[in-house]
């Protein structure tokens, strides 16, 4: 049993019929329920529910404050390399694109770490392009060894690994995994990934579960919004998160809601996911999974991110560059980025913005506790 079995069943739902049958009363009834099931979640993603964004927002805000308080975890991504073996049609890193390819040495990783640590951030997300040849697990582990001196929590967003490989990284100090399915629709997935190891839909789909089995503390899933019908993609993402949360109770499950951004390949999204759509996804997800994390990246513009804070978001990136080496060598690294960001604010600006909204920016929410401690005898 894996999420693939659930996807196989869920994809046969008559989505249009369900959404057309939704009444205002259905939505009002769901808004009074204490626990929502998958059918309720699907209903909240319906076109009719779009007329109920305000009451959904009020409830989402209350639930988020109840479970997370007036706090926001801040983190930033660090790109280690942009070499990639895949031909994804929508990504700048695709092997098809002419891009300045780069991989940081351990000394450069340390320079990046120093630059980020100087901003006060303690949580970091390290990324590579999907090239096991250029960025093998041993390289990622070596980088973690350097980064541990500067950060309390290290997450990875890299190509899908085996359970054993994830466990290797957990053993050296990685505590979080982010891996997006990109698109849950299996046919579209094949279309968008014409060549490369990423073409293996099932191996990618099961990667978050392998991360849970390897004892990652946090696992984050998501669909790249714009590649397919967002209502269905958001539904499958929520089902995936729910499946993982129910099966791996000791792992903190979260989702991200990335919208596709301009990229080197010039790919145009198939579906326009508007701000209203994004808000509906976030609200529906918060009501469905009150305790799950929701991350919003700098793919979204500053003004929108400011407004999303009170709608259920619990994690935000700050001081972001998608360039390899972009934190410490801004000039020389240009042209190696994955996508254009929309919110260029530095960590201090994000911090001040959160404070002005009555939120506490949280720089540290976990501390890697591996390694030797005197007198230990558990």
């Amino acid at each position, binding site marked *: 049993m894996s999420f693939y079995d659930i996807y196989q069943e869920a994809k046969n739902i008559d989505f249009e019929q369900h959404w057309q049958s939704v009444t205002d009363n259905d939505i009002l009834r769901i808004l009074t329920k204490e626990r929502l099931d998958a059918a309720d979640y699907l209903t909240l993603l319906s076109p009719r529910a779009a007329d109920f964004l305000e009451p959904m927002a009020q409830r989402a805000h209350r639930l988020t*404050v*109840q*479970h*997370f*308080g*007036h*706090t926001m975890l801040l983190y930033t991504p660090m790109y280690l390399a942009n070499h990639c073996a895949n031909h994804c049609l929508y990504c700048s890193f695709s092997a098809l694109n002419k891009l300045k390819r780069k991989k940081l040495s351990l000394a450069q990783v340390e320079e990046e770490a120093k630059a980020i640590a100087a901003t*006060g951030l*303690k949580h970091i997300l390290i990324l590579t392009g999907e090239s096991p040849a250029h960025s093998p697990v041993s390289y990622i582990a070596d980088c973690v060894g350097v980064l541990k001196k500067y950060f*309390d929590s290290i997450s990875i967003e890299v190509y899908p690994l085996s359970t054993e490989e994830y466990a290797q990284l957990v053993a050296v100090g990685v505590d979080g995994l982010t891996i997006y399915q990109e698109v849950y629709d299996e046919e579209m997935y094949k279309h968008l990934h014409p060549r490369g190891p990423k073409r293996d839909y099932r191996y990618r789909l099961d990667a978050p579960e392998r991360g849970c089995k390897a004892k990652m*503390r946090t696992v984050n899933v998501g669909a790249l919004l714009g590649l397919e019908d967002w209502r269905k993609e958001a539904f499958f993402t929520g089902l995936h998160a729910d499946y993982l*949360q*129910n099966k791996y*109770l*000791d*792992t*903190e*499950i979260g989702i991200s809601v990335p919208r596709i951004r301009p990229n080197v390949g010039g790919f145009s999204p198939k579906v326009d996911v508007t701000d209203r759509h994004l808000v509906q996804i976030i609200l529906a997800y918060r009501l469905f999974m009150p*305790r799950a994390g929701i991350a919003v990246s700098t793919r979204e513009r500053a003004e929108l991110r400011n407004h999303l804070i009170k709608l259920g978001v619990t994690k935000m990136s700050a001081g972001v560059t998608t360039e390899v080496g972009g934190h410490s060598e801004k000039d020389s690294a240009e042209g190696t980025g994955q996508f254009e960001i929309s919110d260029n604010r530095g960590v201090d600006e994000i911090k001040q913005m959160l*404070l002005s909204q*009555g*939120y*506490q920016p*949280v*720089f*540290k*929410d*976990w*501390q890697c*506790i591996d390694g030797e*401690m005197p*007198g*230990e*005898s*558990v």
Partner: protein
Amino acid sequence: MPNNDKLIIGGQEIGNRFFTGTGKHASNAIIPQIVEHSGIEVITVALRRVDLSSPQENILNYIPKQVKLLPNTSGARNAQEAVRIARLARATGCGNWIKIEVISDNKYLLPDNYETVKATEILAKEGFVVLPYVSPDLMVAKALVDAGAAAVMPLGAPIGTNKGLQTKELIRILIDEIKLPIIVDAGIGRPSEAAEAMEMGAAAVLANTAVATAKDPVLMARAFCQAVEAGRKAYLAGLGPTRDVADASSPLTGFLD
């Protein structure tokens, strides 16, 4: 109230029986205000949030010196992690009190009693004053006594729910049977619920979400302190018995005299 009605934990007297936490506040700067206006003496802090390297972000800098620090092992998923966090807390200068939180359920945030007992046993032997957070269970509480716990902290309802004393009957059994202080922790949403726990004989109450998410956290903390004090006085005073029917003014069996 008798002058000698003091709560003693780990050899230390605690006058104010309402404990609170530091999580979920919009700003750490509110913590000194809460202490100043409510006289709170014990505050729990998640070591996962303590950032010693940054004076501005270090939550410990916001906790007044006269307050007893109760670091907790929030984030621990098993006994081993809880033990390591406790040791880190002590090494960090947070003292030797530790609230054991072992939670391996991220859906409801229910404590893992089995792992909690294991962690308590190890840490008590190492000289910690251990306050374990548990689901109320008599056998577990007895095991915690044997393991060397300084108090037992049963939940009133799952963390953050503000649903009150849902586990009332089980907590009542712990109060009756366990000779350690029983501190009701988690789920308490209203001062009246805190008062009810105290009327039952709880030694203290800890609430964080109810304070941190109130419109006026400082005022809410005061309200909790007053409710806890009132509940304690009621307990000491001895509550009158409850009756199913009113006392009959004309007894029906009077003719038997």
